[in-house]
């Protein structure tokens, strides 16, 4: 693995994968990944289908716990408290409060716009109407959706457009004040304008929250991220500043992938 300055990070770390491996039953999908996640920065994960980038992303909020036979090795250290997110004594529900996730296809609950955003807060036991109103508005504003939906908060979420639904999902993830947001190809189902709106949002959000994004769109990775990691066959091949990765990657395999060459 080639790295650029990861031993002396320019920014404090929000998280760090340490020798992280992951098994789907007998299949080893991640092979000893070491990688820093810089605080309040956007890190993009790129690589061909099946390279493990989504598997890696999902490890951060313990999504793999939902299926039997899955197994982690190594650690994901979460800062500033230096918790190992993968530790058996760490509650996955608590992890997911701190690490939000937005999926490829917008997946709003079949409830009202308001209830979608309030959902995580209610799960947390918040029932004060005024506080809920406040939090929901805040989350919708942060997701740049408030102005479009403030007059119809009781409308069903699935009546929104695709781009709006995705921003609603981001608002839902933001409502619980997560420290890290995971995006798994958040714009692959959206048109260029809706994609632009999400990218703009990512740019705004990183002032408050750390972001890890999986994308197949190379230009998107180049546009939105501060750091980029190239993964291949479950390994992290190269991690570095996005500017360097897209102008002059160190590893030949990264170069071949991002320029669209056959290895």
């Amino acid at each position, binding site marked *: 693995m080639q790295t650029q300055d990861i031993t002396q990070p320019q920014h404090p770390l929000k998280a760090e994968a340490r020798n992280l491996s992951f098994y789907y039953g007998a299949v080893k999908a991640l092979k000893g990944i070491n990688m820093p996640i810089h605080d309040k920065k956007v890190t993009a994960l790129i690589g061909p289908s099946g390279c493990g980038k989504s598997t890696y992303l999902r490890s951060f909020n313990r999504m793999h716990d939902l299926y039997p036979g899955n197994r982690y090795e190594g650690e994901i250290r979460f800062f500033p408290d230096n918790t190992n997110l993968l530790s058996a004594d760490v509650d996955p529900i608590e992890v997911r409060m701190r690490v939000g996730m937005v999926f490829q296809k917008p997946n709003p609950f079949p409830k009202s716009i308001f209830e979608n955003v309030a959902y995580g807060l209610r799960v947390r036991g918040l029932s004060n109407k005024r506080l809920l109103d406040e939090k929901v508005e805040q989350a919708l504003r942060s997701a740049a959706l408030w102005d479009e939906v403030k007059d119809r908060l009781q409308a069903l979420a699935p009546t929104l457009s695709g781009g709006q639904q995705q921003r609603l999902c981001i608002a839902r993830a933001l409502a619980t004040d997560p420290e890290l947001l995971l995006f798994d190809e958040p714009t692959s189902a959206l048109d260029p304008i809706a994609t632009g709106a999400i990218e703009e949002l990512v740019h705004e959000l990183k002032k408050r929250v750390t972001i890890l994004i999986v994308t197949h769109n190379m230009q998107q990775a180049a546009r939105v991220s501060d750091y980029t990691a190239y993964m291949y066959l479950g390994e992290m091949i190269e991690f570095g500043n996005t500017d360097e990765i*897209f102008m002059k990657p160190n590893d*030949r395999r990264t*170069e071949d992938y991002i*320029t669209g060459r056959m*290895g």
Partner: protein
Amino acid sequence: MPDSVHVSTQFDEDLARLRTHVLHMGGLVETQIAASIEACISGEVDRVRAIVDTDRKINDLEKAIDDDCAHIIARRQPIASDLRLILGISKIVTDLERSGDEAKKIAKGVRRIHEAGTLPKQYGIGIRHLAEAALSMVHQALDAFARMDGALALNVIRADVEVDVEFKSIIRQLITHMMEDPRTITTSIDIMAIARAIERIGDHAKNISEQVVYVVDGRDIRYDKGAIK
């Protein structure tokens, strides 16, 4: 530079065509320089018109290649080595076009000198020497581009010092000559312009080589004397 091919063969073809056009333009510029120097030494003023005419072709090629670069950027969004190649080519054609202009300047100077008389013999050798060194730089710079050879490009950059030394020696000679015999001033100024044009051609070859280094390994070595040691 990666030697593997793109998944899109169309993209590979676009890039290959672009490189071929640059080399074609480079070949034309080399011919122009050689012809203008030949005219200078032999006194064949009739060749000047052809040189001036051919310069228009070079200008057109520069525009066509720049246009191709813009299209590739718009359609392919090249990154990494592909992007460096496009950026490098866009700068290389500017230097090639300017080298063509210098050849035209030489040709016009030749016409002025020979309309007024002949090139004093003692300058023939110096000019030829200087021109050979500059032409060799251009040739090798294009070779370095064709083969994407960063080491060769660095050699070209080092060679520029020799051209500069030759140039200064001709200038010294001219100044002495003018002081000794003021009647030679008009011709001397024209010779000076020719020598200056040849020296500039060497500078352009150096610039081209710097771009080759950038394309090959991503280093921007312009204005960095330490990089060529």
